[in-house]
């Protein structure tokens, strides 16, 4: 007698015992049998088959309809098992992807780490908080000598891995350009060509580029489809939007960007940000830029870094601590 037949006979005996006497010890013996069945690669649907056979042997006059009902159960269990298996594989795959994402996010964070420069005459602060693991925003500073400071605030359209890859390209473009005294319009035109050539039609980058001349306090800026920066003139207690109709990077290869100048005086400051700061999905009619201006003025006596942090805290609270997008704000104070 082979082992499977032995197990079937055992099953029948235990089942019969339980039918005659529904006590705990019979259940316990039955459960122990399962362990042996698993060792012999017997599947749940096999167990139903064994059960059906046992019932048919125990009740010789079993109505045919009951046998059919068991067959139905067997069929469904085979399919059920198949789907469970598929589901387990999906979960496994998902877990693997999650681990890869974590590693990729760590590498990205390392690559795109921003160090805030500390020129003698300016106070610079920054907060950049990703919505998900990978940040679609990026801030790049260039400060090679005491004459110029370059700053780029960028936002890649799209999220997750594709956006992160695109962002690395922007970073290396900026690194390659390399000089803090480059003209903002030139920087945008070069990056535009790189991005237009390399990514698909639905991918693009918005970028605000500014160059601060530390000798005469002239800030020169150009924008490629980016959220306008704010310029606060302390003497007048007025904010100016640094608007520009420059097109997003990566759409038209030959686009010409226009740059503008503004001269900063004592206590003036600039607020550079991404649309994650101004765009509130849940508060449709809300004048977010107006609110940010109010906040910035009320915190203007703090350091640039503290200002960024306080504004972030306020906006986070306003949206019930659940921001819709990556959030990046840079403040440069004279």
């Amino acid at each position, binding site marked *: 007698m082979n082992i499977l037949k032995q197990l079937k006979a055992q099953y029948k005996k235990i089942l019969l015992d339980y039918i005659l006497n529904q006590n705990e010890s019979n259940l316990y013996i039955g459960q122990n049998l399962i362990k042996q069945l698993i060792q012999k690669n017997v599947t749940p649907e096999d167990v139903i088959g064994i059960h059906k056979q046992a019932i048919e042997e125990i009740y010789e006059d079993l109505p045919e309809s009951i046998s059919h009902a068991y067959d139905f159960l067997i069929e469904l269990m085979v399919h059920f098992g198949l789907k469970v298996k598929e589901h387990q594989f999906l979960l496994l795959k998902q877990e693997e992807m999650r681990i890869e994402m974590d590693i990729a996010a760590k590498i990205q964070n390392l690559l795109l780490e921003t160090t805030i420069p500390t020129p003698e005459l300016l106070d610079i602060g920054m907060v950049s908080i990703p919505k998900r693991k990978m940040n679609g925003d990026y801030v790049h500073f260039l400060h090679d000598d005491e004459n110029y400071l370059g700053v780029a605030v960028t936002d890649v*359209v799209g999220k997750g891995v594709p956006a992160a890859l695109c962002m690395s390209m922007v970073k290396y473009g900026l690194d390659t350009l390399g000089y803090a005294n480059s003209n903002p319009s030139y920087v945008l035109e070069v990056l535009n060509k790189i991005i237009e050539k390399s990514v698909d*039609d*639905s*991918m693009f980058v*918005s970028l605000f580029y500014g160059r601060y001349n530390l000798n005469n306090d002239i800030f020169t800026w150009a924008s490629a489809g980016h959220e306008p920066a704010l310029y606060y003139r302390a003497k007048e207690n007025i904010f100016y939007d640094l608007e520009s109709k420059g*097109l997003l990077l990566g*759409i038209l290869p030959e686009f010409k960007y226009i740059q503008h100048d503004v001269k900063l005086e004592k206590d003036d400051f600039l607020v550079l940000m991404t649309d994650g700061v101004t765009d509130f999905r849940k508060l449709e009619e809300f004048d977010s830029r107006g609110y940010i201006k109010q906040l910035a003025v009320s915190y203007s006596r703090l350091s640039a870094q503290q200002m960024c942090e306080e504004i972030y805290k306020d906006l986070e609270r306003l949206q019930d601590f659940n921001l819709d997008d990556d959030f990046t704000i840079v403040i440069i104070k004279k």
Partner: protein
Amino acid sequence: MNVNVQFREEGDLLLGFIEGEIDTFTAPTLRDELNSICISEGLFIELDLLNVSFMDSTGLGVFVAFYKKVMRENANLKLVNLSGRLTRLFEITGLSELMDIETIKKGD
């Protein structure tokens, strides 16, 4: 959250009515819908965004990609009935200078 598009043909004009929210999750659906359009030379495509309650930059990407495709086929694309918020999005990104867009008319 969902997005759907209803098309209607009127001679050389193809009207598409977009409804819903366009974000990272629904953008692929919108992209597929727009890619199903058979673009012939000289075709006028008008997409109505009156019932788009939300759109983020991913949605913008879908429209830019579609715009480029339409231009390659020598056809025409116009986006109409954009809310103030959507108009601002197209203006900030410089796309309003490139694409033909029309803001919703007050009192309509």
